[in-house]
């Protein structure tokens, strides 16, 4: 056996899980296990208690409500991948999830696990930033909502109190027929992206862009919205020249370097991938003249 010794708990409700989280020393929540289990096997983490959420059935749901997609923390990535609702109403998430790990990891991996692991190169984290998601955090005092922009407290560190857990997320939907694209560069299919880019576009009757979202994942300690690029797009007629000019700012971000790629290469990729995402998103707008 590889994991260190720990006490195992498998609550059936969120209330029980939160109560355990509040009273146990050095606990760790286990969702799909596709990140925590490797860390346990390699003994990077040494929890005294593992609280397994896999029996909390109430955290597994996927529905449309009030113009948003609501997904429970323990919803498997596989259920997102094969959801017609996601494919039709949130195609950006569908395109992104096909690039999350592999079939075997998506069968276990969950939305909540991915968001709390908060790897800056994780596709679902980048999608949450792109769609201005809201996360629901539940603790002993009840639930609170937090804009995803405020969720990363630092590199791979969610803004959760020690006795709080993420129980769901809400992804506002864009108008039907909007343009979307999720593109990434990785060394092998299913790997974490070296850099990824997500783009969403809406175009008015005049052909001018009315709404734009551009997000860069994997280049900075948490995915960032390219606000300068978004401002440069809105109000202008879509064209390759506009996309190229708008993405110039993406190529100047404060990227991080590591063993996979130096900062200069990540900056380069950010500009190129943002432009490609916008071109692809624009081509996919329905009813485009």
């Amino acid at each position, binding site marked *: *056996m*590889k994991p260190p010794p720990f006490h195992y708990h498998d609550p059936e409700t969120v209330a029980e899980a939160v109560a355990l989280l509040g009273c146990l020393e050095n606990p760790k929540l286990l969702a799909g296990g596709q990140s925590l*289990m490797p860390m346990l096997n390699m003994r990077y983490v040494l929890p005294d208690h593992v609280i397994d959420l896999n029996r909390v059935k109430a955290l597994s749901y996927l529905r449309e409500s009030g113009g948003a997609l609501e997904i429970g923390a323990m919803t498997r990535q596989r259920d997102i991948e094969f959801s017609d609702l996601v494919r039709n109403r949130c195609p950006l998430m569908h395109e992104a999830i096909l690039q999350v790990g592999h079939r*075997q990891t998506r069968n276990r991996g969950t939305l909540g696990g991915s968001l709390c692991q908060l790897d800056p190169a994780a596709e679902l984290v980048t999608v949450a930033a792109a769609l201005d998601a809201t996360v629901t955090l539940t603790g002993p005092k009840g639930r609170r909502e937090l804009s995803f922009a405020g969720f990363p407290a630092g590199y791979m560190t969610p803004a959760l109190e020690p006795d709080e857990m993420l129980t769901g997320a809400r992804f506002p939907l864009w108008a039907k027929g909007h343009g979307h694209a999720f593109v990434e560069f990785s060394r092998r299919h299913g790997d974490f992206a070296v850099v990824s880019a997500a783009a969403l576009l809406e175009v008015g009757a005049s052909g001018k862009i009315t709404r734009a979202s551009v997000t860069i994942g994997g280049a900075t300690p948490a995915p960032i919205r390219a606000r300068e690029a978004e401002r440069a797009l809105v109000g202008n007629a879509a064209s390759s020249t506009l996309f190229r000019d708008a993405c110039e700012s993406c190529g100047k971000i404060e990227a991080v370097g590591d063993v996979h790629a130096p900062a200069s290469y990540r900056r380069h990729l950010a500009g190129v991938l943002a432009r490609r995402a916008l071109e692809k998103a624009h081509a996919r707008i329905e009813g485009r003249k």
Partner: protein
Amino acid sequence: METRKIGVTVNGQRREAEVETRFTLADFLRQQLGLTGTHLGCEHGVCGACTVLLDGYSVRSCLMLAVQANEHEITTVEGIAPSKTELHLLQEAFRDNHGLQCGFCTPGILTTLIEFLRENPDPTEAEVRIAISGNLCRCTGYQGIVAAALDAAKRMQGEKRG
């Protein structure tokens, strides 16, 4: 050491055992049940060799605790052939297309493809390559594996029609 009693259906057979709560499903299958067909390569979810079916869906057994399999159904490579003397059509296709050399990755690839071909009985070559992208093979260069998977799809459809 903390232990728990679990009941699991493995390859159609009900098994009850006392397991350490920190035991991975892979180590439980290999060490406690003696089902050493499930191979362990990296033990951190990269190589895919330990893939088994959990209620019919492919999962990495090194990334699950044995206690989590309580009251679930597991299928390992030992459980995919119809009998002790016959191979599954997928296994026959692997033999005929040189889909394996050393055989280390084969159990994980077979279990992955059983799920994949059930959901996508007539796949393209590109789809097969994506389906097995989470399984590392250092011998074949994947050519024989992809050919075997496509051949197996044909054989399995033929069996359904026949």
